[in-house]
């Protein structure tokens, strides 16, 4: 297998950049024990493709696995008011018209091998699932991982398991623990998904960074792009 980004539980991509593969750890504490406390920064969640192990040898299983991945929602559904008298609702939908081709090509082991390799290395092609900025990454990721967290539920509804994703952390600062509380992070988390105006405050610059990144990279499970 060719690895473009490596294949370890935790990879240090550069001094302050870490990539975590949650599928290689068991339990939330296994991840949280590897995220520094009181570090602020930007983070992004990425989808991880896990085709059935037998798919590499079996064209049928291979085709079914690819179709299964294709059928998962690729972004969150959206709803908005259309003033003065309408509301609009958008649902994700993926159509794939080349099932026949896929079945035909799946018979070729080198095609299966190629697709396997590309999906395993898909981080470099991917639109992130979610991008955020937090003054305490540890606390923010902890709230994302919590049972029934907003992001966990949103991903689950689309067939994605947050505990099987990849997580990229870019540390930007150390902060004193007293400056940040879990509550603030929770609020932050909700803010990011609500359409409220931010007042200029300590958190305003974080919100702005988040908005800019969301606008630029359109993370598919973020509801508000700023």
């Amino acid at each position, binding site marked *: 297998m060719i690895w473009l980004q490596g294949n370890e539980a935790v990879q240090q991509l550069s001094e302050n950049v870490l990539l*975590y593969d949650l599928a290689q750890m*068991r339990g939330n504490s296994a991840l949280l024990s590897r995220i520094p*406390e009181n*570090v602020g920064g930007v983070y992004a969640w990425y989808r991880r493709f896990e085709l059935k192990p037998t798919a590499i040898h079996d064209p049928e299983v291979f085709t079914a696995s690819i179709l299964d991945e294709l059928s998962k929602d690729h972004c969150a559904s959206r709803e908005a008011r259309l003033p003065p008298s309408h509301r609009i609702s958008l649902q994700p939908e993926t159509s794939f018209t080349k099932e026949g081709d896929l079945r035909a090509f799946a018979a070729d082991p080198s095609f299966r091998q190629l697709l396997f390799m590309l999906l395993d290395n898909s981080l470099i092609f991917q639109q992130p699932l979610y991008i955020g900025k937090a003054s305490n990454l540890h606390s923010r990721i902890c709230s994302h991982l919590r*049972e029934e967290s907003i992001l966990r539920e949103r991903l689950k509804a689309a067939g994605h398991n947050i505990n099987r994703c990849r997580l990229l952390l870019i540390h930007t600062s150390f902060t004193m623990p007293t400056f940040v509380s879990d509550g603030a992070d929770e609020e932050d988390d909700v803010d990011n998904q609500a359409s409220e105006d931010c007042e200029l405050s300590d958190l305003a610059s974080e919100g702005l960074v988040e908005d800019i990144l969301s606008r630029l990279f359109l993370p598919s499970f973020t509801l508000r792009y700023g």
Partner: protein
Amino acid sequence: MLIIPKTEGKARFNKPLYGMTGTYTLSEGIALPYFLSLVEINRAIDELKIAEQIPASLDTQWSLKELFQREIDDKRVEDDIVKGYLLDPKKLKFFNAITIVLMPKGADGKIQDTFDSSTSIEPPPIPWDGTDPDDTQWNHAEANVANFSGVQFISIGLSARLRWDEDRVLAVAVDGQHRLWALRTFREDQNFRGGTLRTVEERTKVPVLFVLLHPSAGFQNALGEGDYSIRGISRELFTDLNKNAKTVDKARELILDDKSINAQCVRTLLTERTGEDSKERLPLSLVRWQDDSNRFDSSYYLNSLVHLDLLVSATLDLKLPRDPMDKKQVNEFIKSINSALGINEQEVEYQGRLLSQYYSEDYCDEDGEPDTPFARLPENYLDSAVKGFQVNFRPWLLKLLLEFKPYRNLLKYSREHNLIEGTFGKFQAQTNKHRGIIKEQEIAKDSDWHNREILAPQAAIASMKDNQWAFKAIFQKAMVRLGKMVDFEYKGKDKNLGNIDDVLNFLDRLYDKGVLRVDAILTDYPFRLWTFIAINPGNDKIKVAKAVEDRIFSLLCLWYYGSRKIELDAANGERILSNRKLLNFFKAEANKAQWPSCTEVYTLLYKGFNTNAFYGRDHDQLSEDRKKGMVLERFSAILADGLPQIDISSSNYSFADEVDEELGLEQES
């Protein structure tokens, strides 16, 4: 919780109860008559009382706490007995007799010392109701009829009939009061049934044993000593019954219980019977299974059943719901089961149905709200869960418990001397009494038999354990935590942490080096190596506490991380950090990404040293800098004791400078 009994419209005397009578005459001069009856569940709930139902004003005057010694534990009643047992639709429900003492009650509601014979009470008629032809039979010439102070007790041979006046007599439970209260809660509490039992439930009859403390019922007490008032006797009965009703001990439960996930998992680690050896299991012959003790640091034991249970329980870390009707808690519990016991991170399942699906479909109503308590892993799912244990935990756990050098040595000695399958193992598998008989028989034939066959091997194994941490339960738990982190949490695939074989090699090296002796010294330092971590500075005794287990785990982690880092750096031709620099490295928050919780591990150990006992008599005159220097000096010496010796000549690495610079993104605490 206050439950008002349904007493409206009752006659003074209750309806007759029928049953059998007998007498305990096991103490000379004492005859204690009793009456055993099968009481319909609704009558038992209505007519039998618990101590706390005696009017509260009596409490101060009659010292109910002293009399009954045990208060009702409402939480146990609601959570364990009602939600966890009576409301569980899948459980067989059975319990043995409730014991009741009939106690005389005065007009003021207070319990009397004796049944008052001065006031005459009109005995109730026989039959109790003219329309009951069966009851008429008790109006018989051979019947012994006792009417005393509101009690009517009739016996004909073994058969008997009992009634009492509920205004003058209280039928109080001296054994089974929690069960009785649970039945009442089950029927009356609005949170559960709200006043009614189902028709099928109403058919239940509860065995009740009434103790009759009146001479006309056959009670005799020729002893003049002690408190033989009704209260005094009740107190004595209550204390004896509750003291002697011992629950099944933990070790037996682990051997016998087929419904407990822990017990089943523990059993996968052991041979099925004594006298049986296996390379892949702990031989039961060498495991302490005969009692409830978790210790295995003396005699011939390789481990103990109770400790294995504690290990499994801590390793699985299942989040049992405190309230089995709370959906969030139950979901957490199911999640913990799946996370620990799901194979390839799939959910635990039965016939294709996932556990979470089973819960939402069978334990919740159409709105998704729970309508049935979920207190334990359902039996159908046990097989799948045990298979999960065998895949996720058993291999590395057994590796640690069998292949760590001190255990390997013990097993080697046992096999060489045929202790598992031979006479020794067979002897140890006997009951205490049988061991005595066999010993006498064998000594009669060969006077040295016991010394040679039993005592000598026992002593030889005991000497192998002498002062070794490996045989201390608290250390083994910490060691298994390290194994779990490496092989379960990171699947044995993390390049820094390595796998269980790396952990085993690391532990063997520490053992060979003598570092894992409880009394290991720290050369050139006043206290022993393990002082301030796990042994007391004053008397060198082991402190047994969670904080100590955490410190042992932390030290093992730090030694392991340090060893791995040195080995990896050496292999990669990178510079090797000095001990002080290694400490700084693991103190740094940023390095947690590669070495899980290294900062916490460092901080926990630092705190262990940061005590007045460590700083000595002049502790109040030392500056904070001096104290820090003292801690770091000792800390660094301890770290060095657990690190591997690197052969400088054979590789191209070099030691980093001894400059005490900070590494990584670090914050001072």
